[in-house]
């Protein structure tokens, strides 16, 4: 049994009810799709890259409160970051969600996700947007291009 009251904090519930950066980005330069095969949840992430910098980010998808709030906060935080800064934040978040992280390194809002580390079956929900961002930064395609949804960021080793 899990202590969910610690997980569903107001900040997560708020981002779930009113997700920020929600909807397609008209002038996006990168589009990436993420799927959690465990539950079928899907997420599309758009980035507008300005050289090495993420000028804008948005997302759309069907998902639980954890994945939606995670995507909402993530898209807000990475705006203005360089690839290297975003990569570092992705790494920090993965560590937090799997219980290996140091809270002090993280923006305060993200600390609400520390609770998922105690819920192994929900870790994938929290990290799905971050995996998708990682794929987008590594090799994301132009929006609407051929195979735009063909190569999905998938959770490795997820069980059906």
């Amino acid at each position, binding site marked *: 049994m899990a202590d969910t*009251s610690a997980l569903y904090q107001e900040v997560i519930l708020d981002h779930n009810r009113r997700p920020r950066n929600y909807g397609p980005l008209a002038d996006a330069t990168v589009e990436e799709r993420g799927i959690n095969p465990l*539950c*079928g949840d899907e997420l599309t992430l758009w980035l507008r890259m300005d050289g090495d910098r993420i000028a804008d980010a948005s997302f759309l998808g069907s998902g*639980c*409160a954890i994945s939606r709030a995670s995507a909402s906060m993530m898209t807000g935080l990475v705006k203005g970051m360089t690839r290297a800064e975003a990569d570092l934040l992705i790494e920090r978040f993965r560590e937090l969600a799997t219980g290996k992280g140091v809270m002090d390194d993280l923006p305060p809002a993200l600390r609400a996700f520390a609770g998922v580390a105690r*819920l192994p079956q929900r870790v994938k929900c929290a990290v799905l947007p971050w995996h998708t961002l990682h794929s987008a930064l590594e090799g994301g395609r132009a929006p609407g291009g051929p195979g735009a949804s063909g190569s999905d960021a998938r959770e490795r080793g997820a069980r059906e």
Partner: protein
Amino acid sequence: MMTLVPRSDFSLLSANPGLVYLDSAATSQKPRAVLDAMNDFYETDYANPHRGAYALSARATERYAVARAAIARFFGVKDPECVILTRGTTDSLNAVASAWGRANVRAGDEIIVTGAEHHANFVPWQQIAIERGARFTICPLTSEGQADVEALAGLASRRTKVIAFNHVSNVLGAINPVSEIAAIARGVGALSVCDGAQGAPHMPVRFDALGVDIYAASAHKMLGPMGSGVLIGRREILEAMPPYQTGGDMIASVGDERTTWNVLPHKLEAGTPNVAGAVGLAAACDYLTAIGMDAVAAHERALVRYAYERVSAIDDVRVHGPSALERSGVLSFTVGEIHPHDLATVLDERGICIRAGHHCAQPLMRRLGVAATARASFYVYNDENDVELLVSAIESAKRVFALA
């Protein structure tokens, strides 16, 4: 309404009195009788069967044969040689799709499945249709989630080689008219294949009287062990079906150039069989028979009817599938905008185990127009109190997500 059997028959439930296990459609808990029977095989008669050079092996062979006979009785099969022991429903359905399908489905033929199939009775047929260049047709559903039999009769033609359908939907609990569908298949000369994974555990099944060609089920959903199941077929179908796998036990003689096959059931059971799994399944069959499958069905129907009333009365709850009177012990629902995974996490905090997600039935989820549902499912060890705890936990989840 009390549980149909004492919770104390189940070690796991006894050890966890606060646990509300409502996920038997995924897998059932095991009575001690099943675990004891398997243990007894390992402790008293364990050897490789079918190699009878010594008495111990002969005893193992006997245990396997006795188990098969008990399983055949449970499923209403007069000829135990028509009961093939497999790894489970998925294994059974893949065996038929690949072995029978490859031998009998040709370019231009058609395979029909319903829109409510578990992936295990959908993907193997979709893939064999692609491989053989056959048409893959999805039979529409009634508003209650059963196969639309009228539509099916219109779809089926001489080109139809297979009609595959579930006995009971694992998402909706809708019960299909097995004999009616089998008759439609017979009328056009198609093979009828019934996925009984959610049927056999919950209601009496008399295979010989059903009229269906193939029936598959899993031990672990009917109080038996994981990794064991059945593929039941009419003898002439199984006789004509090429082997699914080749190797030990399934041969008559192996020449340098060619090999001849053993008789049924061995032809379709390559390799050392899962004897302990068969012994466990047989013990589960005996346990269920002692309760009576009519009593099992009545208990679940009463419980799901009660759950349907109580859960559907909660504001913002939508229950999917047939009316309370027409369903097996499965209740799929959604609560307002709360994602089923969030709901399951909040319920888990109160010791309530439900399934959340697409239930390995994504084609059905698309037809229902939902990404996921929450699913509570009931069995012989559940009672009304479990339903009450479910209802109060849903109310509490609504408060967490500010719906109440």
